[in-house]
């Protein structure tokens, strides 16, 4: 009897599940009709339609830049989860944008937050659920391409041209370079618009000035002097740290060696590298496949085995604050990082913490000491073009309103307000006219430096005026000593290498392997650094061969072929 009841119950569960499955297909079927224009071929057909519509309705949709009826769009905004930050969806700056957009274009803006450090995964989920914001932004172009392949992204190629007259600020700020950076040389597709970088500084080396002073040393100017300094730090741990001597870390890094030892790696690079070689190996911005990188890492390996480096670096993942805490506590002698890293976050900045925790003199200063074969302090800069990728998913029903949004936030006065805020609240104007950023409170707090999360078309100090920006750059950090900022800025630009852009269309081999390869790259670096000196070569080679066979070689081959297709046997770009 019991069995019978149970089987009935199971049967009814079955029946129910079948019904439910039926419904779920039903659901899927309807969505599919809604989004018929979404597989790859269909998109291309759908585009001209959209353009036709745009042309017929065209600019007539707008009177004085305004829609007749209120439109609404959603915009992605990074959530950095800062302690005591402002609500990314609702603060002084979002209010400014919302108000401006409504007044100027009759468009209602809603912000949708996406966690900064898992942005790719989160945007994936939103796109998959057809709930992505109308304006999406990401640092990862492969993500955009993957969705474009699936028909999930609007091809902007005609739209940006058709609405050019309606978006003068956008074109003026981004220029053809950024607007058409991703234009496919064959099909002409534009899946994303690239933001522009107002600042090019990338990575510098920081050392503890007070430790140098305590040991009567000068700031190092060569690789050898840098090493000698680390040795001196290690050997004088008792003098420098007293009872905390065992916590001494002369040189600190993270699992991301390719970034955090970048000045060293770059100094080993062949200064006469051809554009071709740069392009072929350029898919990895940590240069792991460059031939000389191995020797740079051999040096790190020596330092590691000599006890000059942090032993635990590989155990902490992205976003972990252990290393920062160690630096702030004053246990670290030197490290490499973003040029303004020690100045960021006002009162919680590294230098402000050192001052509080260690003493008035304790501070990190930028130094330049890694010379390449030509005797230059070579270091890579960011390209001024090609920064964050802005794209519209196919679920975006308001492409014009979205373009108007981009136009609005590219206006010089918008950029100025978003970056500088209100006088007296977030900044003061100095006698020279320079803008001094000061620590803000509540709603006025900028969660990202220069509010770059809102100025998605502009990354870095601009204030709507280049002269003002240059004048103000040293004053851009609350609580930081302008002289130190200025010095770091100058060092970060000295002997800078300008990246090149080679647009030969999509490299098929790069699709879907980006994440795998970058995690494998970190494994090469990390394992090689901690290897016993005698095993260094075998460890490097074995991890490298795994990297190459997991897709690295395929990319190199395809890039080599594409280069030959477009530039023949030339070594440099025409």
């Amino acid at each position, binding site marked *: *009897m019991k069995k*019978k*009841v149970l089987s009935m*119950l199971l049967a009814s*569960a079955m029946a*129910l*599940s079948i019904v*439910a*499955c039926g419904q*779920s*297909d039903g659901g*899927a*079927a309807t*969505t*599919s009709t809604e*989004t*018929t224009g*979404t*597989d*790859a071929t269909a998109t291309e057909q759908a585009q001209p339609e959209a353009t036709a519509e745009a042309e017929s309705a065209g600019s007539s949709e707008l009177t004085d830049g305004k829609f007749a009826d209120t439109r609404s769009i959603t915009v992605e905004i990074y959530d950095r989860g800062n302690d005591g930050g402002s609500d990314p969806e609702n603060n002084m700056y979002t209010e400014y944008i919302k108000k401006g957009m409504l007044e100027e274009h009759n468009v209602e803006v809603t912000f949708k937050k996406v966690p900064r450090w898992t942005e*790719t*995964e989160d945007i*994936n989920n939103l*796109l*998959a659920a057809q709930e992505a914001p109308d304006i999406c932004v990401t640092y990862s172009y492969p*993500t955009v391409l*993957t*969705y474009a*392949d*699936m*028909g*999930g992204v609007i091809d902007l190629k005609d739209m940006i041209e058709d609405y050019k007259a309606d978006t003068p600020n956008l074109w003026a700020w981004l220029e053809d370079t950024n607007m058409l950076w991703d234009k496919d040389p064959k099909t002409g597709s534009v899946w994303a618009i690239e933001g522009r970088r107002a600042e090019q500084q990338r990575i510098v080396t920081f050392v503890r000035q007070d430790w140098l002073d305590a040991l009567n040393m000068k700031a190092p100017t060569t690789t050898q002097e840098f090493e000698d300094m680390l040795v001196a730090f290690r050997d004088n741990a008792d003098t420098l740290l007293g009872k905390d001597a*065992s*916590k001494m*870390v002369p040189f600190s890094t993270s*699992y991301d060696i390719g970034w955090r030892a970048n000045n060293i790696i770059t100094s080993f690079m062949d200064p006469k590298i051809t554009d071709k070689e740069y392009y072929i190996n350029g898919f990895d911005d940590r240069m792991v496949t460059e031939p000389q990188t191995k020797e740079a890492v051999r040096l790190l390996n020596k330092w590691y085995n000599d006890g000059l480096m*942090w*032993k*635990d670096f*590989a*155990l*902490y*993942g992205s976003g972990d604050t252990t290393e920062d805490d160690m630096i702030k506590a004053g246990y670290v002698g030197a490290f490499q990082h973003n040029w303004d890293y020690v100045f960021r976050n006002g009162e919680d900045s590294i230098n402000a913490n050192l001052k509080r925790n260690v003493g008035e003199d304790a501070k990190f200063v930028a130094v330049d000491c890694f010379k390449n074969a030509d005797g230059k302090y070579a270091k890579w800069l960011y390209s001024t073009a090609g920064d964050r990728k802005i794209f519209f998913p*196919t679920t975006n029903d308001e492409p014009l309103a979205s373009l108007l949004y981009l136009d609005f936030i590219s206006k010089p006065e918008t950029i100025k307000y978003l970056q500088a805020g209100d006088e007296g609240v977030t900044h003061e104007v100095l006698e020279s006219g320079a803008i001094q950023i000061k620590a803000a409170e509540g709603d006025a707090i900028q969660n990202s430096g220069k509010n770059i999360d809102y100025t998605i078309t502009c990354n870095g100090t601009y204030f709507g005026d280049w002269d003002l920006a240059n004048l103000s750059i040293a004053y851009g950090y609350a609580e930081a000593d302008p002289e130190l900022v200025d010095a770091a800025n100058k060092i970060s630009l000295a002997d800078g290498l300008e990246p090149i852009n080679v647009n030969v269309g999509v490299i098929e081999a790069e699709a*879907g*392997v*980006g*994440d*795998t390869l970058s*995690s494998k790259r*970190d*494994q090469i670096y*990390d*394992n090689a650094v*901690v290897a016993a000196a005698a095993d260094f070569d075998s460890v490097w080679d074995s991890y490298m061969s*795994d990297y190459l*066979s*997991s897709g690295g070689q395929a990319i190199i081959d395809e890039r080599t072929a594409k280069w030959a297709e477009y530039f023949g046997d030339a070594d440099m770009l025409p």
Partner: protein
Amino acid sequence: MSKPVKAQSNQKFGVYMKKYWQLYAMLALPLLYLLIFKYIPMVYVQIAFKKYSLMGSIWTQPLAKNHGFEYFIKAFQNNDFRYALKNTLTLNLLDLIFGFPAPIIFALILNELCFTRYKKVVQTIAYMPHFLSWVIIYSLALQLLAPNAGLVNMVIQNLGGEAIPFLNDEAHWVGSYIGFGIWQNFGWGSIVYLAAIAGINPELYEAASVDGAGRFRKIWHITLPGIKPTIVVLLIMSLGNILGGGFDRPFAFQNNLVMRVADVIATFVYRVGIKGLQFSLTTAVGLFQSVVGVFFLLMANWISRKLGERGIW
């Protein structure tokens, strides 16, 4: 069956349901859970055989190459998948060898304790780790075992020893991983055995004492045979899971220095599928994993029945 009997049984069913409907109502919720989160998603298993796109219906998407098996072939050509497969098997086997007996031994030991209060305290403490998430456990592990800042290594170094790379050397890492696994689970896992032990007829022990059996004899001849069916059922279930296993434990414990032994199928699927957007490939991997799991489950069940145990079917 003749008609009157059926009518009678229908009537009985009515009476039965009237009496027990509340229990079935309570069952409905978990069943609904299974339905929504386990059965309905199975529709999407077909992603493994299709050139999948997030946009549009899966029903209309074209089959992948090689009669739909493109992604299975790709998976087996993938270095990382082969590593992940090997690591999943190794780690799960080690877990089985060292982790499976631990709760049994613990239950036996607890059962022999005669101070009830002490026993209860020990039991409670042993259950606690089960309620910690792996992220927390990994943070604890870092605080204790990191080569530079870990407490254990600081002690070792202060005593003049060399730091032991518990978490940053492949062999040591496997040991730590298995060790923390056992630590987290042995207390909780012992509950089921303690319950089984409680069900053993005390007269058996009394009889054994009369016959002059000591503690170990009693454990060997009464307690262990008494909980054997429970052991077998749990063993079958662990074998069914030999290619499975959770995501959080390996994911929390992984670092770049040990990925060659630490990357398992679950983390591979996350990295390549969710982060790398290769949905078809990783669904194929997931399907393969499940099919092998079912195979192991059936085989273990079959063997246990052959050996005269009840099995789970």
